[in-house]
């Protein structure tokens, strides 16, 4: 499903931030990505959610070689990926429910169903009272939950989350992890970048570690 072969990445003319990355993620698998700050976790995730291009190597996403896939096909591939950004990336002029509904609206879904579905998801993450709130009025944890709801609303084939439980209390953290596991059971491949070692203990998943831009597997499942 997702295959990285000898992938390297650098920003502009700078040094390589990722070196010789090789892995294969099977459909429906669950992975954690760990490593110290600056190890290249966010850069690796950017390659996965098709925000950046590698400077060398081969990336295959959902059977498409990304080096030869035409640009016009990228939007359709991106719609198969749900992303929880570390800094949330919520649109300030939209309400919480409209932020969550955005991926489905982009796809052209019926607006009534989109709103209904977005509302249900926000209730599920504990934001039933904050449907119409603007991001500026939400706390860090609330923003994170809106971002997670937005990432999962399209039932993506791949869910990529950068520190998804960093701003929530332990109870909400385990609730969100439960959501990710449920999605994983339905066939979504999940990749979570985290510093939180307690998460690694609670969930059956393979653990990838990045250090100085090189990837190693601590455990495989």
């Amino acid at each position: 499903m997702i295959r990285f072969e000898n992938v390297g990445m650098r920003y502009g003319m700078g040094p390589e931030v990722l070196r010789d990355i090789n892995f294969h993620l099977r459909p429906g698998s669950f992975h954690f990505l760990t490593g110290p700050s600056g190890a290249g976790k966010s850069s690796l995730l950017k390659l996965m959610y098709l925000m950046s291009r590698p400077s060398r190597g081969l990336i295959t996403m959902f059977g498409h070689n990304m080096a030869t896939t035409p640009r016009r096909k990228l939007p359709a591939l991106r719609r198969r990926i749900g992303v929880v950004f570390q800094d949330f990336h919520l649109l300030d002029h939209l309400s919480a429910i409209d932020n969550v509904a955005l991926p489905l609206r982009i796809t052209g879904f019926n607006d009534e169903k989109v709103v209904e579905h977005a509302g249900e998801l926000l209730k599920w993450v504990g934001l039933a009272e904050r449907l119409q709130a603007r991001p500026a009025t939400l706390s860090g944890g609330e923003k994170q939950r809106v971002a997670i709801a937005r990432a999962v609303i399209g039932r993506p084939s791949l869910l990529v989350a950068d520190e998804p439980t960093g701003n929530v209390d332990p109870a909400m953290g385990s609730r969100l992890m439960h959501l990710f596991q449920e999605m994983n059971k339905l066939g979504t491949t999940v990749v979570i970048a985290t510093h939180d070692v307690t998460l690694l203990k609670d969930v059956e998943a393979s653990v990838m570690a990045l250090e100085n831009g090189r990837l190693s597997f601590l455990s495989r499942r």
Partner: protein
Amino acid sequence: MNLFSFDFIKTTFSNIKSNKQLFSLSVATNFIAFTVLGIFFLLFVNLDILFSSWDKHIQLIVYLDDKISNPNKKKIELLFNSNDKIDSIFFVSRDQAWESFRGKFSSKSNFVTSLNFNPLPDSYTLRFASGPDRLKNIRDFSEKIKNENGVESVEYGEKWISRFEQFMIFLRGFILVFGVVLFSGMILIISNTIKLSIYSRKDEIDLMTLLGATHQYIKVPLLLEGILQGVSGSLLALVSVKLIHLYIVFWFQGSLESVFRGLEFQYLTKPIIFSVISTGIIVGVLGSSISANQFLHRHNSE
């Protein structure tokens, strides 16, 4: 998704709302440019009406030689009668002409009454059928008839008609060149406004791209915004030109009527109104497309 789907329209208005000042500035600039163009059109339309009304009054006078022979006179009359574009033919004898001339000018000049001979020739006054080629028909026929034996001269105010025609050609050309300059300027203005609007929403567009939005999804609200800028500017300009028209009619209609033989000062014609609005749309589409395409192209290359 349809170009005018609710989602696109909603996004467009939300974009405008968050960039109110920029949008208003662009509409105002377009409004000024279209108003200037509209005033020129107003001038052109009314000069054209004036010219057409003069055109209706133009008649061809054929002056005969005093020594014209009867066969030549018959031949000339035959030429008149065989031309189906001539509506009516009046013969004015030299005595009738002299009587009429004396009646008009004897009170103003002693010279006229002191003349003891008639200097005027016999003449024919020809009225041509109305139609778009009327002036051309007069011109063609006068060229044909003036070299006939027995014709002294022909007269239909050719010199001033030519001058006025040349002025109208110049005005048409001037409006065209001026229009092209304004058109390019307006495209540049809208293009830059949309560019600023895009850069102020760069993060949003980046996010939409990551969520899988197609170029069309990102571009359509920008195009609609550009069209709204162009159309608003042109509509406001049409309203302001209408106000100018009403002002002129209210204060100067009487004077215009007396100076220009009953000229009724008109507003822009429907085709011109339609052209101004269409130009607004074209300017909006071109201006916003240039910026949106440039941005998306650069965005893809990153």
